[in-house]
């Protein structure tokens, strides 16, 4: 158990990779064996994430040096800087890791029956596991270059999954768009990594954070990094790929691609808070993040309201919800160097933003899955052709209601808890921001009322007469996420104190992250 715990940071990345390459071999022998292998891999990863999380909340961050004679030997003796590839997992990383592991597991269970009609499933599961490994790596890595590598793994597998159904042109175009945007974004990141290496001869985030001077070159690197991550997380001026990609990706993979873009948001926060920290002009950068957040919220929801394709609608809501997280954490960033404002409302805003990340991954994932369940049962994504399915698909209807109420911020659901935190704290920073956030929330509710009415209630449309409930594994996948939402809704205080607070602390406290690797060096 101790051995497992000590090696868990790397095993969480290596096990999905191992599973990914075993999948094509096993599926030559038996399809059932492959499904079992994939689920078992992800269950094991989830287990590792949980034991690692418990240990991190109890005993602080974990580091893992690859190839060293001891995993803890990040900086060998007589070396001024770490020379190996280092993984560093703190409370924020493990929070994201938990989200990725859970959503991947739900997606895989869901896909087992969803993909029954498709061919080439060995490749599908390989890509699914690769995407999991990419997300985990992006969240756990301790150096800038591996951030780039894992971002590329994530982008390639995400794009391949989005365009998995090569029979549809729109799937291919959605995937192509995603790949194209990702390729440009990751080249920008690579260029920024080059700038860092040229100046400091360092790649490790902790070591760089210690050395960084905020020169003109660093400002250029920061601009490149922010632009690249905004592209990847579909922040508004650069969101054009999101609706196309999310709406075509098959089944369970949509939430995974969405969580992958949240992992990029994590990378943005890590760069802003941990790499640059107080050296940068936090007020300006904070306002930039807030501005992008506001734009995303507003444009996303206004575009969503008039969509009639259910997955496109959900995709625009996904863009809009990302805005809340950027807003919350952006306010925290803006007041990072002002310790009084930080303690009165900055922390709370960040807590709200981070709580929203985890809430949102769960209910947005659930909503994407219910949308796909409707598509599976009806064969159409057009809301105008649905109607009165509520009676035939009771469970899906209940799951959809849970997700929709949570995303609209109706008490007592978890969406309400995180949104309330954001409203309250942002109001103290700037009242206007809070007003916009509330308006967006009302429009979100309006849009989901529309979906609920046109899909589940009303006169039974002729298309849906013979519709049956979706198979059990799909319900199981949705059930996992719904159960987590209900749990979070019942105990928001517990989640806030035990999971979100340490994550906020991890972001604000740059020193802890640096000491994890540079330990003792001034």
């Amino acid at each position, binding site marked *: 158990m101790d051995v497992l715990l000590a090696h868990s940071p790397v095993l969480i990345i290596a096990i999905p990779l191992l599973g990914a390459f075993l999948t094509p071999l096993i599926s030559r022998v038996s399809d059932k064996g492959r499904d079992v292998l994939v689920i078992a891999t992800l269950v094991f990863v989830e287990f590792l994430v949980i034991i690692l999380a418990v240990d991190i909340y109890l005993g602080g961050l974990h580091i893992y040096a690859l190839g060293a004679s001891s995993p803890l030997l990040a900086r060998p003796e007589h070396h001024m800087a770490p020379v190996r590839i280092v993984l560093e997992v703190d409370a924020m990383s493990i929070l994201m890791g938990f989200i990725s592991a859970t959503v991947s597991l739900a997606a895989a269970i869901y896909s087992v029956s969803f993909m029954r009609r498709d061919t080439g499933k060995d490749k599908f599961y390989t890509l699914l596991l690769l995407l999991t490994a990419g997300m985990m790596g992006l969240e756990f890595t301790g150096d800038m270059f591996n951030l780039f590598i894992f971002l590329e793994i994530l982008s390639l597998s995400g794009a391949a999954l989005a365009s998995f159904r090569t029979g549809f042109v729109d799937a291919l175009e959605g995937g192509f768009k995603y790949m194209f945007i990702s390729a*440009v974004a990751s080249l920008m990141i690579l260029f920024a990594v080059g700038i860092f290496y040229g100046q400091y001869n360092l790649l490790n985030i902790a070591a760089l954070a210690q050395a960084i001077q905020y020169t003109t070159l660093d400002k250029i690197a920061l601009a490149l990094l922010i632009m690249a991550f905004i592209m990847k997380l579909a922040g508004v001026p650069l969101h054009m790929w999101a609706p196309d990609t999310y709406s075509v990706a098959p089944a369970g993979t949509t939430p995974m691609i969405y969580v992958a873009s949240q992992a990029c948001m994590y990378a943005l926060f890590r760069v802003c808070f941990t790499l640059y920290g107080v050296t940068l002009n936090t007020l300006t950068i904070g306002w930039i993040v807030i501005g992008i957040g506001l734009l995303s919220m507003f444009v996303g929801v206004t575009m969503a309201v008039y969509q009639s394709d259910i997955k496109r609608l959900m995709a625009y809501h996904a863009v809009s919800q990302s805005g809340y997280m950027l807003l919350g954490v952006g306010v925290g960033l803006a007041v990072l160097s002002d310790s009084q404002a930080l303690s009165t409302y900055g922390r709370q805003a960040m807590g709200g933003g981070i709580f929203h990340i985890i809430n949102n991954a769960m209910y947005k994932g659930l909503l994407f899955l219910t949308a796909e369940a409707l598509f599976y049962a009806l064969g159409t994504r057009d809301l105008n052709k649905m109607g009165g399915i509520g009676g035939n698909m009771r469970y899906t209807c209940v799951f959809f209601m849970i997700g929709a109420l949570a995303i609209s911020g109706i008490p007592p659901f978890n969406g309400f808890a995180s949104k309330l935190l954001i409203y309250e704290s942002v109001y103290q920073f700037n009242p206007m921001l809070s007003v916009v956030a509330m308006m967006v929330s009302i429009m979100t509710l309006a849009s989901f009322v529309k979906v609920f009415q046109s899909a589940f209630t009303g006169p039974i449309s002729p298309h849906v007469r013979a519709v049956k409930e979706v198979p059990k594994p799909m319900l199981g996948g949705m059930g996992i996420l719904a159960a987590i939402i209900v749990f979070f809704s019942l105990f928001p205080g517990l989640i806030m104190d035990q999971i979100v607070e340490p994550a906020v602390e991890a972001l604000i406290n740059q020193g802890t992250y640096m000491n994890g690797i540079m330990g003792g060096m001034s």
Partner: protein
Amino acid sequence: MTQCISNIPFLAVAALIGTGLSIIVFNRNLIKLVMGITVLEAGVNLFLVGLGYRQDGGVPIYTNACHTNMVLPVPQALTLTSIVIGVAITAFMLSMIMVIYRHTGHIDAKRSRTLKG
């Protein structure tokens, strides 16, 4: 003089990145977009390798270390990795374009159906 010479790679980097970006922005042909990405990538890779170059540096191979002054090996490792990734991306995008072409008979991003909202 040596200062001027050592800046030449970076001028080439600027030229390559500028070319790549202009191809990406002004072209609508999918194949040309991929070419733009490749040129951009060449620029970034050259930037990385250029960073590691040291005047009169030796080859960073341990067994023949006759120079005390060696070219930095890390940027070369980074470049190699990014080349490998670049190959994967290019192959993937080109194969997607092939399938798109087979479905639609054109490779013009302007005539794409899905470019809505």
